[in-house]
């Protein structure tokens, strides 16, 4: 049962990810991203992390990708772009290096963390104690990091507004 769910969810994640890269149309690519995020949510559910699954859908699929779509629609870049023109010359080599680096890092983390499989976790506790445990650690142990993150977000929003405001000279 768990194997079937794992295979199906992974297929969702991978096909979505491939779609993001291969689709010519940015809106289709964004939909591919939604599929990937749903696959990850299914993985969370199968690991009994219901809260993370719900938040994954609400925040990523429900807010962030909607924002992407908004930008795509409002800026009218929803037609396939000409890929032969490169605005930033260094972009592609750097992307290849970074991609390879991230792959190595993730592979290393998986290999080193192999022994954590099957270890007892909080997630198997019944009911919503899962959520309670999460809230407790977020608001007690990691409260400083949590608050700093929220400050960062506020600064980012305020900064964006200030930077993008075009001050018009009053012309009477």
């Amino acid at each position: 049962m768990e194997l079937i769910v794992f295979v199906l969810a992974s297929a969702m994640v991978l096909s979505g990810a491939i779609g993001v890269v291969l689709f010519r149309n940015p809106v289709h690519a964004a939909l591919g991203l939604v599929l990937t995020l749903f696959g990850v949510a299914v993985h969370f559910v199968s690991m009994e992390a219901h809260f993370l699954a719900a938040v994954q859908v609400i925040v990523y699929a429900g807010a962030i990708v909607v924002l992407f779509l908004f930008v795509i629609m409002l800026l009218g870049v929803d037609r396939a772009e000409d890929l032969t023109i490169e605005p930033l010359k260094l972009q592609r080599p750097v992307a290849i290096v970074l991609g390879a680096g991230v792959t190595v890092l993730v592979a290393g983390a998986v290999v080193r963390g192999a022994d954590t499989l099957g270890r007892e976790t909080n997630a198997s506790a019944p009911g919503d104690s899962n959520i309670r445990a999460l809230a407790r650690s977020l608001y007690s142990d990691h409260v400083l990091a949590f608050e700093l993150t929220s400050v960062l977000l506020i600064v980012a929003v305020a900064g964006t507004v200030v930077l993008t405001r075009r001050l018009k000279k009053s012309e009477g």
Partner: protein
Amino acid sequence: MIAMLPVPAVDPVLDTESWWWQPLAIVGLKVLVVFIIGLVGTMFMVWFERKIVAGMQNRIGPDKAGPFGLLQTLADGIKLFFKEDLIPERSDRFVFKLAPFLAFVPAFLIWSVIPLGGDFTDGRDGTVEWFGQITRVQLADPPVGVLLVLALSSIAVYGVMLAGWSSGSKYPLLGSVRASAQMISYEAALGLSLAAVLMAAGTLSTSGIVAAQDQLTDWHLLSTGVVPFVVFLIAMTAELNRPPFDLVEAEQEIVGGFHTEYSSIRFALFFLAEFMNVISMSALLVTLFLGGPQPLLIGSFDLFAVLGPFGGTAWLLLKVFLFLYVYVWFRATLPRLRYDQLMDLGWKVLIPVALGWFLLLAALQLGRDNDLSQVGYVTLVIVCLVVLGLGYLLFTAAISVARRNRDREGAAY
């Protein structure tokens, strides 16, 4: 194989050791019943709305098909099936076909977490025994119940957004941009007023929330003060794109909004989804604030005691009915808001009010948890009020500064 972990009971019927046909049959039956309730309820809602609006406008309304015109919706549905299915030349075909389902499926799925009946009185947990199996009168009771509804309603945004974009014409695009902006703005107010209920109930599961509202004074309508309820009701009306917040399909400005280019059965799916959302969100509102299937006792007299085990369902229907009427009433009474008024109401009134009230409730809850003395309580409330007052002053200052800047520089666009 990996050993079976104790599954957090999505449905107690699945907890049994001996797996035989009964659990599967019960779950299958419940899926079927929820599906049928959804469809029949939507049919009824369309008829109900047309009939009530007609009454308020001194007309007769549908009265030809079936008794009191009850079958009018069925007739309309059959008619829509046989209409020609048009796909615009400049549309994005795949997304155009996908969008109605993205609107329709979440509308249905919300029903799965609403407790539809069962006995929650005197601290009973609402489980019932069918064919020797213990279960709930609700399709699923996941530990994140209410968050699931929020997730589904955020998926519904895609239906509207993609429908407008993929039509390849300007009015649908305008309609869908309006709709998604509106739905995202009001989701914040919705979530904040919801948080007040979740804090009072201490759980996210819908059956837990119903169980926490045993007495009339425990109903979250009263125990959270009436403010979150009002915010939730307004935010929900906006979220559903119902009048007076139906700028999404303002006929005078943008034809039909996001579904202008849709015809035939695809249009019917949008139409169904809209009405189904009205019913399922009303049911959610009743579950959160009015105790769902909990009876309203007058003394110890229960109006639906005659119905025995179906009493809870009858109470739920009665309460949902009340809100369906309120929605029709809104539609027949209130004129549509202007777009800037809509955004002002959402961002400058509802969100600050919901946030301030949430702060107050959280402080009171903290006082209760720590067994504060009388003096402690008074200080707590005073501190809260001072903080809220300061917040309000800052807020009005910010708004007036913004207005002054706008007056000086002219509008940004």
